[in-house]
Structures are given as structure tokens and as C-alpha cells.
């Protein structure tokens, strides 16, 4: 077994999965409260651009992050205004945000930086450093799995590790706090929550705020962790893949984590699998592997491999009865 291969595969998976995980967590927060969020792709794109633009002009990592988070929350609040305060269609709103984001990021990018939509490359100070490199070197000494462990798990930037921590945090928030209990109930039976004297509107806005922060982290990661700068359309459908992962994970943060890792692994492996001949199937086209997450999600939605039950009140605007 080639330790380097396995190690680099793990490393790629983790790096590629990080934005998926953060987005899937964002989607989970929103949808468990009953609000469909199809705007994840757009939020990720816009916040990535904001982080890159602010990072390039100020040279400060923290300013870039702050800008991204502020924008992410603002977009989610807009979503809430149209869909929670007024009975706007949640699907259409999500599409509107994404469609606007695709155009606006390039328009502003060209106007401000004149590099065909890209932002100038971010200085190292704005980018994240790899962590635990020392630990990695130490691990390499271990027999058999040392190299794999070192390559796979150490040397990533802070966001990668943060994503995993956040999975735990979101899980704890949803299942171990009062807020989480009320939020989950809101997505299933908002009338009951209302009758119990809790404000459905406020809960949904709070969920959307957290959704905005998480989506912003995903977007910021793209430019401070993965690519050194913004490229037009750099999200390339990841927002939708994160949604698929969330559904595949049955709207549970840990389930979503596994789904994201799976989809991330497929993405990381697709390049390496090119040209590989599988017994009986012949050469596997890279596009088949690229399509696999989406195919799997459809199969799951169709109920062929177990049931994926959405929160019962998902997508239905809540109107007070009396």
C-alpha cells in the first residue's frame, strides 16, 4: 500500500471537503428551522469575493474574514426578510441570490481590479498557514501509518480543522441546547412552537444568522485556504453539492459530515482514477465520478436506499392562524 498515495488522498479529501462541510452545516441550520436555502452557492461566491477584495486591498486576514461574515449574515437576513417576514418563495429567493452573485462578483471584480474578474493574488499574510507541521514531521517516524497520518491529517490550515470542530458545535447546538430544540421543532410544526409562546420568526432569523456566518466561512476559505484569490465562478456548484450532502446526511450535522467527506473523496479521487481500468467496467470516465454525488442524491431522494425525510414544515411560510 502506497502510504504517500493514501496520505495525499486523505489530505485532498479533507481540503476539498471543508467548504462542503461548512456549507452543509449552514444549510442544515436553515432547513432544520424550516427555511429552504438554495442561495448557498451565491452566498459562498459573494463572501469569497468579499474576502478576496478586502484581503487584497487591506492586506489583513481578519478584515477579510469580518467582511465575509458581515456580508454572509446580511444576505441571510435578506433571505429572511423576503421569506420569513413576508411570504416570499424560498426557492426563488435562493435562486435570485445565486444568480445575482454570479454576475455581481464579476462586474465588481472587473471594475475594481481590472483583471478580468479575478482579484489580485492575496499576500501570504492574508492566507492561512499550515498547522501542526512539527507534529507531522514527528509522525512520519512511525512505522506503517506514520507517513499516511502525517500527510493526511497534519499540515492543513486552521479552517480545515475548524470545520470539523464546527460539526461538533452545530451538533451540540441542535441537540443539547434549548435553542436547538426549539429550532428543530420550528422546522416540523411551527404552529406548536407558536402556541407554546415562542416566536417562530425570531428563531428562524437566528437560524439564518448562523447560516450566514457558516456560508461566509466557506466562501472565505476558498480564497484564504484553497486558492490565493478570487476567480469568477470559483464555487463551481459546490453550494449545490453541499445541499445534496445535507440531504444525503438526512439533515443531521454528523450525517452531513460523512456525506461531505464522501463527496469530497470522490472529487479528490476523480483525477487520480482517470485512466484506471476497473474490472468488468472498463475505463471509468472522470465525468462519471464527478456526477456520482448528484446521482447518489437522486437515488436517495427517490427512496431507493432508505428514506430521507425532510423537516415537515420545510419551505412552507408560517402564517399565524388567529
Amino acid at each position, binding site marked *: 500500500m502506497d502510504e504517500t498515495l493514501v496520505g495525499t488522498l486523505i489530505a485532498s479529501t479533507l481540503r476539498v471537503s471543508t467548504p462542503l462541510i461548512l456549507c452543509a452545516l449552514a444549510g442544515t441550520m436553515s432547513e432544520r428551522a424550516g427555511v429552504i436555502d438554495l442561495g448557498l452557492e451565491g452566498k459562498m461566491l459573494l463572501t469569497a469575493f468579499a474576502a478576496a477584495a478586502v484581503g487584497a486591498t487591506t492586506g489583513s486576514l481578519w478584515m477579510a474574514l469580518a467582511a465575509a461574515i458581515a456580508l454572509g449574515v446580511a444576505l441571510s437576513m435578506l433571505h429572511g426578510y423576503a421569506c420569513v417576514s413576508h411570504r416570499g418563495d424560498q426557492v426563488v429567493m435562493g435562486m435570485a441570490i445565486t444568480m445575482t452573485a454570479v454576475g455581481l462578483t464579476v462586474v465588481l471584480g472587473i471594475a475594481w481590479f*481590472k483583471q478580468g474578474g479575478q482579484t489580485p493574488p492575496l499576500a501570504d499574510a492574508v492566507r492561512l498557514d499550515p498547522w501542526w507541521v512539527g507534529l507531522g514531521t514527528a509522525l512520519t517516524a512511525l512505522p506503517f501509518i506514520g507517513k499516511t497520518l502525517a500527510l493526511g491529517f497534519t499540515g492543513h490550515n486552521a479552517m480545515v480543522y475548524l470545520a470539523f470542530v464546527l460539526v461538533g458545535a452545530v451538533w451540540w447546538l441542535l441537540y443539547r441546547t434549548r435553542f436547538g430544540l426549539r429550532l428543530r421543532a420550528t422546522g416540523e410544526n411551527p404552529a406548536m412552537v407558536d402556541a407554546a409562546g415562542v416566536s417562530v420568526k425570531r428563531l428562524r432569523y437566528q437560524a439564518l444568522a448562523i447560516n450566514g456566518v457558516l456560508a461566509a466561512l466557506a466562501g472565505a476559505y476558498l480564497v484564504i485556504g484553497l486558492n490565493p484569490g478570487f476567480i469568477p465562478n470559483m464555487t463551481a456548484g459546490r453550494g449545490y453539492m453541499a445541499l445534496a450532502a445535507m440531504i444525503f446526511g438526512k439533515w443531521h450535522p454528523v450525517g452531513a459530515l460523512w456525506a461531505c467527506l464522501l463527496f469530497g473523496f470522490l472529487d479528490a479521487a476523480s483525477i487520480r482514477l482517470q485512466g484506471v481500468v476497473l474490472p468488468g467496467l472498463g475505463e471509468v470516465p472522470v465525468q462519471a465520478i464527478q456526477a456520482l454525488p448528484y446521482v447518489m442524491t437522486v437515488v436517495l431522494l427517490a427512496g431507493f436506499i432508505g428514506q430521507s425525510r425532510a423537516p415537515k414544515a420545510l419551505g412552507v411560510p408560517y402564517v399565524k392562524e388567529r
Partner: protein
Amino acid sequence: MSQPIELPRWIDLVALPAFNLALALLVSGFVVWAIGLDPVQVLALLVKGAFGSRAGVSYTLYYATTFVFTGLAVAVAFHGGLFNIGGEGQAMMGGLGAGLVALAFGSWPAAILLPLMVLAAMLFGTAWAAVPAALQAYRGSHIVITTIMFNFIASALVAYLLVDVLKEPGNMAPETRAFGPNAQLPGFHTMLGWFGIEWPRTPLNLSVLLAAAAATAVWLMLWRTRGGYALRATGFAPEAARYGGIAPQRQVMMAMAISGALAGLVGINEIAGVHNRLLPDFVAGAGFTGIAVSLIGRSHPLGIVLASLLFGALYQGGAELSFEIPAFSRDMVTTLQGLIVLFAGAMAMVAAPLFARLYGAWSRRVRAEAARG
């Protein structure tokens, strides 16, 4: 997607969309100004680029043709109570269908080959829409999610076919060989040439008439046939439709089948009308433009035709503009498109009650004055 607020027809069909369009234009104008350009100048150049020359008008109509197809697709699904976001993928498959037929039977006479290609485009589009439709109707899978997934799957499928199976040998780019003259729809300039009229060479082709025919056919279907009646009843009031002997699952299938077929026709405009070969990304976001077109056009074929012309003009004007003003790019049009979906779609529920209140107050005053006078 029903209307819970009761507004008089003229507000619902004209005033409200005009208002939302104005809002979207206003915000876009603001963005234009924010990036240091003069909105008025931009607008003037845009109009000139879109309508100021015969070539410009032709390009505008050519773009509009594609948008009519995708707009009608979204509209038909809307009338059945469904949101079809899969237009992008269905259009791609339509092009694939037309392309496969052209590659297989490219030597047949055009009079047979071209209609066959149209049929294939529609069938492939229908098939691609039918699977999410069946999953919704019979397994309860949310059609919005499945159609989005199918967009990606279509993209991957077509990419695979273009790179590995259908690629023209010796060509660096992932595209098929040229289909040949029999698979080419006559261009507008060619058609006018038959009558001795000179016209600049543009991608505008016979499909524009096909689009007009499709819009008319959809209008007839929705408001003059039983099928359309059943579709609209299901979209407005599924329980009443069931009471009226209409099977809701069948209506879901019908709506999506027609919707997919319409989206598939994009393939005719692009593949048979312009490129004469199958190449990647010929849809280029038209499926999403169709959503904007249908929202502004209030899901009515006439509104869709007008909205398509608007967007066609924006695309063409935008292309011309980007030559004149380097800072301007087509992405401004994409932004405007998103803003239209925002105001006409998502925020529609914000404006509508305001209109209802204003209208209510105004009509009460009119009636009071009539009573006094």
C-alpha cells in the same frame, strides 16, 4: 405557485411586473454608477447596440429565441404548480438529441432530417424532465432538488460524450465534427436572400419562427385545450382538480414533459441553427434566464415573448457595450437577471400587499366620489 392576494388583472399582469422591473433596473443602474460608469450612457449604448442596426436586431432576436423556449418551459411547469429549474439540463439534452440524429442521419435530405432533429430535441428534453417528474409524482421526491441534480448530471454526461465518444478525431476542442449542410437550419440572411433582400449574416435562423410557433402553441394549449385546462386547474387547486376527475400525478408528468420538450428546443436554435456541431456549454445559463423571463412575463406566452425580447436586447446590447466600454461586461446582464428574479419572484410578496392596499384605498375613494357626485 398560487396567488393568495387578489389584485385586479391589470395590476397583476402589467403594473406589478413593470414596477418590479423598474426596481431591478434601478438597482442595476446603481451598480453601474457605483463602478464608475454613467448609467444613462450605458443605457443609450445598450439600446443602440440592441436595436440600432440590422445586425443588432438580428442578434437580439437570436438570443430572444432561446429565452422564449426556456421561458415557456418554466411557465408551463408553473401553471401546473411546479418549479422546473432543470431547464439548463433539459436544453443540453435537447441539443444532444438533435446532434445524435444529425450525426447518424446527416446524409438524409434536409426536409426530413431537420424535422427529425426537432423531434429528437423535444424527446430528449422530455425524457430528461420525465425522470424528476416521475420521482415527484410517484415517490414524493422534491422536484426542485432533483432537477438541480439533473442539471449537473446532464453537464457531466454531455461532457463525457463530447470528450470520449463523439469527439471529432484530430480536433483539439471537445466537439463533434460538423454535421453537414442538411442538418443546418437556414439562417435569416439566407431566407431573406431567397426573396432577394440583403441582410447581414448573423446567427439568427429559422428557429425564431419556431419560437413564435411554440409561444402560440403554448397559449392555445393552456387556454383552449382540455389538457391545458386540467394543467391549470391542478396548479391552482389540486383538490378541486381531483374532484373534477383530473389525476394530479398525470398532470405533473404532462407539465414536465411539455416543459422539457420546450427547453429541448434550445438545442435546435443553437446546434442546428448556428453551430452545426455539438459543443460544450451552448446553453450558457439560458435555463436560468428562462426563470427570470417567466417571472417578469407572468407565465403568459405574450409576456414571455416580450420579456425574451428584453433579455435578448440586454444580451446583445451588453455584448456591444463591452466592446465600447472595457469596464462593462456581460455579467452586468446576469446581475440584472438575478435582480429581476429577486424583485419579481422572491420579493413579489412584499410589493403585492402594498399594491393591494393602495388599490383598495384608491378604489374606495373613487367610489365615494361617484356616490357624492
